[in-house]
């Protein structure tokens, strides 16, 4: 449909001028040099401290030592150290304490430790700066090499789809949302989608607790679930907690990554599935980073999709009822797309088989869902597909993200009926 040939091509040099990036790199390298000087300073301190520890250790071995006692800066008296086991140690802020040799050594060791921690932090900072500098240099060289950024809008499909066939569907939605539909229907949809996903997750968790661990992947995931979610299944409480967490996560994601929605859901998944999905998330993020760095296929209009999501924060308490509705509805029919969303009715074994079947046709049906419905439903379906990928093929999720729009474009009309059925 669309998604093909919709994009802008910007030379990287226009976004990051070569000289500017080189300047930035130079500045970062200057800071690195500065920090390294500081580091040398600290290293000198540490060496001095170690010498002093040795000295303090040796001094009490004799009763007194002949030394030249300094008298001012330019003069000495011949004299000797007495009371060689009594040291006056600065504690800080002008306070001194009488310590023995051993105690002094302890004090000095502690000082050495703090110095070492300073060195470590400084080294970490330098490492950071070096990474930054290398990034700047890479950017500069890429810009100089005439690299081009290709932006392709993924979300632009949604409005066109809505135009195409959302006449009756819209009415349905309005029937659901009632009076709020004009202002908050989108938000409610988002919220409902979130709740549905939460219920999916809970359902999975429950299934996992029942111990249906035939499938390898599912077994692993349910393990994670059991570990991370041994909470009482008070749905509302859990939901609200999850939502809050999700809000925080989402906002951080919005600010920090500005990533496609798929990525965001991946993040959510990571939150829920623990380390397994976390790995995929990391991979995802790194992929995304390289994407952003090379600027090959990142979506320009993610920004626009982010805003409605943020509105959810304000609209959370508007549509609990609808949420319940949305969440429970999927279990009635159209299980292919929404089995996971079923709240509590699905029993372990059934759920399991359903899931297996769902896995098989997940790509096709969900892609179809995505294309066939207005933005809200397509996103939800898309979320489902992302869950699939997090479970089954975390490695390929990034590619799936990038290619999904094309796939959806290719199968526009097939699963409409299923969704409409579900609507009624």
């Amino acid at each position: 449909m669309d998604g093909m040939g919709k994009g802008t091509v910007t030379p990287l040099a226009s976004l990051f001028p070569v000289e500017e990036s080189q300047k930035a790199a130079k500045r970062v390298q200057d800071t690195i040099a500065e920090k390294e000087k500081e580091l040398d300073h600290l290293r000198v301190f540490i060496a001095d401290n170690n010498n002093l520890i040795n000295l303090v250790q040796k001094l009490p071995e004799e009763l007194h030592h002949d030394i030249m006692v300094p008298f001012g800066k330019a003069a000495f008296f011949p004299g000797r150290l007495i009371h060689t086991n009594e040291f006056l140690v600065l504690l800080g802020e002008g306070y001194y304490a009488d310590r023995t040799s051993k105690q002094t050594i302890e004090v000095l060791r502690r000082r050495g430790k703090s110095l070492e921690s300073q060195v470590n932090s400084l080294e970490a900072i330098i490492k950071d700066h070096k990474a930054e500098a290398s990034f700047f240099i890479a950017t500069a060289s890429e810009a100089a090499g005439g690299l081009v950024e290709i932006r392709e809008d993924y979300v632009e499909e949604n409005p066109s789809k809505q135009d195409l066939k959302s006449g009756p569907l819209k009415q349905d939605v309005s029937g659901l949302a009632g009076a709020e539909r004009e202002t908050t229907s989108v938000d409610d949809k988002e919220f409902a989608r979130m709740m549905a996903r939460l219920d999916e997750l809970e359902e999975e968790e429950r299934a996992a607790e029942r111990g249906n661990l035939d499938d390898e992947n599912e077994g692993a995931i349910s393990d994670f679930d059991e570990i991370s979610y041994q909470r009482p299944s008070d749905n509302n409480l859990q939901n609200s907690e999850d939502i809050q967490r999700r809000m925080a996560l989402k906002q951080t994601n919005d600010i920090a990554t500005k990533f496609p929605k798929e990525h965001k859901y991946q993040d959510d998944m990571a939150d829920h599935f623990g380390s397994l999905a976390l790995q995929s998330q990391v991979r995802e993020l790194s992929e995304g980073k390289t994407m952003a760095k090379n600027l090959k296929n990142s979506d320009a209009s993610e920004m626009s999709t982010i805003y409605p999501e943020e509105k959810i924060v304000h609209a959370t308490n508007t549509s609990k009822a609808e949420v319940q509705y949305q969440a429970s509805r999927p279990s009635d029919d159209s299980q292919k797309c929404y089995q996971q969303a079923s709240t509590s009715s699905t029993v372990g074994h059934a759920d399991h088989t359903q899931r297996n079947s769902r896995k098989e046709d997940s790509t096709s049906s969900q892609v179809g869902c995505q294309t066939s419905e207005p933005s809200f439903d397509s996103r939800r379906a898309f979320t489902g597909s992302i869950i699939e990928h997090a479970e089954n093929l975390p490695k390929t999720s990034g590619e799936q993200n990038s290619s999904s729009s094309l796939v959806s474009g290719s199968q526009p009309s097939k699963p409409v009926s299923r969704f409409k059925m579900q609507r009624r």
Partner: protein
Amino acid sequence: MDRLRQEKILKFEEFVDQRLKPDLVRAIAERDKVFEQQKIFSDLRRNIENLEKSSVTSLKTLVNIGSEVYLQAEVPDTQHIFVDIGLGFHVEFTWSEALNYITQREERLKRQLEEYTQLIASIKAQIKLVYEGIRELLQLPAEKPFPERTF
């Protein structure tokens, strides 16, 4: 002609920036060092005079052995004092000898200080002179469109 003048101005400015200003900075740093020396010796002189006044023969003091760790030290005989005479040499003096040396040293430091002050003043004067020259070069051909320079 204009080109020649411009080159001259450039040369002058280079001279000021590359030569005179670093010289000035160096001279001021040297003078600060001398100031410090002066302070050290005046302190020493005051201390010795105090010792003389109270006729101390032995004293106890705390020695900093590094990192603000102090150890008690004892000087059994304060009659002999070793004074730094420069270049890492220390000479054993009695108090009167030490005071004598310190006076001479202080005088010398004062002379050095004056020298440095002179030097600094002359460098500043040279800088001013060169700037004045540049200004003259710029002002004489007032009708010629020269790039505006800020000093």
